[in-house]
């Protein structure tokens, strides 16, 4: 049924359609509306057969999820940013134990400095924690990915994280097709656990594993994710057959045939990039976009095949590996090892900085000339950082950086947007 609905509420409805038996979560912006919606559905009897457990922290939330999943209950939780960090030990335990929990991550920056807005720092902080990690481009896809996530998680007995851009998706009201309960029931069979804690048939989970067996357990976790490389596109195809729409999959290419330049990105910014591609294509630029739908497992082969023919690859990412540069870009370079493509890292949208087409266009124009630099920060206020670097060099007790930058930005004026954006210039 088509609805004009807030992304968070659409996701809550989709999760309810998956008939979770235990939901436990601790509220944190920008994920809160999802679990608020679910708690209301449990309370008003909309969602039956489900226990909503209030917990005192994110660490407790995922710990409860681990317990309920181990007991054989379909289990869901959600978090963001610092909340994910607070549950970190349990994040590794959930995957290490092979428990098919589905968790939404309302992607948000990580402090300090504290920032509630969107980027992918939180997701990148758990990129090696053993979870399958999917990214949604739209709220429709966010809905669809949750339904696919339970199927994938339970088949492989591996936790799945559905990443949705905080605010940009979670707080956007737009058209979403909410599936019928019968459709979801037909697509998603009841949870049939590969391991279950049952007093009638006692067994242990979570053994201490020494040097003689640890490597093998880890190898099998990797093996599961390699299996997911096959199952993710298969499940997306099954989803399309059942629901009639393309959602999910490992990667998606947009106007990449014959492209000289391909932009690689994850999440909602792909929508903006598609508009940019159409505009530039109309002006004769051969450019396309590859959307990474699955970051874990990382589809090296699919990414290589999609990008091989492009002279230039721009990896736009909403995270920064401090002291290194791009994270997704490193993955893309790994996929393209041995190939001569030029790969550029474009760090954009950190801490919620808007990613604007005029700025993207200006960068694409510069990339066409194939400069030698590697990492570029979109719309970085160079006047601010240069001045701050000079001041730090001149004064020993230069003080806290965040406060200094805030003062300087205020003094130079609030305007963080390029003039071209405000005057509406288009290349």
């Amino acid at each position, binding site marked *: 049924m088509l609805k004009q609905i807030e992304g968070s509420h659409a996701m809550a409805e989709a999760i309810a359609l998956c008939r979770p038996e235990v939901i436990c979560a601790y509220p944190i912006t920008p994920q809160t509306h999802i679990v608020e919606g679910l708690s209301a559905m449990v309370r008003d009897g909309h969602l039956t057969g489900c226990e909503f457990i209030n917990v005192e922290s994110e660490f407790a939330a995922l710990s409860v999820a681990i317990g309920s999943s181990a007991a054989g209950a379909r289990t869901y939780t959600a978090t963001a940013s610092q909340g994910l960090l607070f549950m970190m030990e349990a994040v590794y335990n959930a995957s290490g134990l092979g428990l098919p929990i589905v968790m939404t991550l309302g992607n948000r920056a990580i402090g300090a400095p504290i920032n509630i807005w969107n980027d992918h720092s939180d997701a990148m902080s758990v990129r090696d924690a053993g979870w399958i990690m999917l990214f949604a481009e739209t709220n429709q896809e966010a809905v669809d990915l949750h339904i696919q996530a339970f199927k994938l998680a339970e088949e492989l007995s591996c936790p799945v994280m559905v990443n949705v851009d905080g605010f940009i998706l979670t707080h956007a*009201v737009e058209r979403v097709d909410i599936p019928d309960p019968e459709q979801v029931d037909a697509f998603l069979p009841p949870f049939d656990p590969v391991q279950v804690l049952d007093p009638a048939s006692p067994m242990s989970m979570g053994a201490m594993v020494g040097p003689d067996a640890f490597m093998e357990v880890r190898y099998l976790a990797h093996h599961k994710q390699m299996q997911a490389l096959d199952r993710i596109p298969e499940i997306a195809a099954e989803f399309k057959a059942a629901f009639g729409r393309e959602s999910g999959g490992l990667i998606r290419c947009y106007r990449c045939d014959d492209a000289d330049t391909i932009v690689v990105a994850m999440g909602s910014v792909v929508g*903006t990039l598609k508009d940019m591609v159409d505009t530039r294509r109309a002006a004769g630029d051969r450019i396309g976009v590859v959307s990474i739908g699955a970051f874990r497992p990382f589809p090296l082969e699919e990414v290589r095949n999609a990008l091989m023919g492009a002279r230039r690859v721009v990896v736009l990412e909403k995270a920064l590996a401090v002291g290194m540069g791009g994270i997704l870009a490193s993955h893309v370079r790994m996929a393209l090892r041995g190939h001569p493509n030029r790969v550029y890292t474009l760090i954009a949208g950190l801490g919620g900085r808007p990613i604007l087409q005029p700025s993207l266009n200006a960068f694409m124009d510069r990339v066409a000339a194939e400069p030698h630099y590697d990492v570029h920060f979109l719309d970085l206020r160079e006047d601010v950082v240069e001045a701050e670097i000079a001041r730090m060099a001149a004064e020993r007790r230069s003080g806290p950086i965040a406060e200094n930058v805030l003062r300087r930005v205020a003094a130079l004026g609030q305007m963080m947007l390029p003039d071209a954006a405000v005057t509406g210039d288009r290349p």
Partner: protein
Amino acid sequence: MFQIRFHGRGGQGVVTAAEMLSVAAFLEGRHAQAFPSFGSERTGAPVVSFCRIDDTEIRTREPILVPDAVIVQDPTLFHSVDVFQGLPDSGYVLINTSADYKTLHIDGVMGRFPPGHARTVPASEIARVHVGRPLPNAALLGGFAAVTGQIHMDSVAEAIRRTFPGPVGEANVRAAWAAYEHCRS
């Protein structure tokens, strides 16, 4: 694509206004995207929200920097926020006030818009009469329908009813109709 930016203060229903407008467009079978300015909103603090309406899928996730219309829910914002930023001369402006442009010190700016594109409507007072509280958002949507012709008033009314079921919704619908008539006259 038609893009609308709402300016107001926390507590005036700025975010809800954009959402209701998107629902009205949805009811007409159109694509619409409403979203807030993603701040940590506090009562009384300047708040911005956005709505895009189009006949095809809306893909961009940018904030609206070049709006086709600006709705100002609080005329005291002119002192602190450049609500006209990016608005072209062909754009539409709707301001919730009973004062004239000169009193608000915006007569210079308002002069650049074509006849009929810039209007004021005492939406808070209309709301006080019909709803009993000076919440201007629903009334302003009625004014928006009249000034821009981008949406039918019936769709606005239905969107208000869906957002606020019951007597509160009906009162807001009456306020929206009153503002609609005010702006058509």
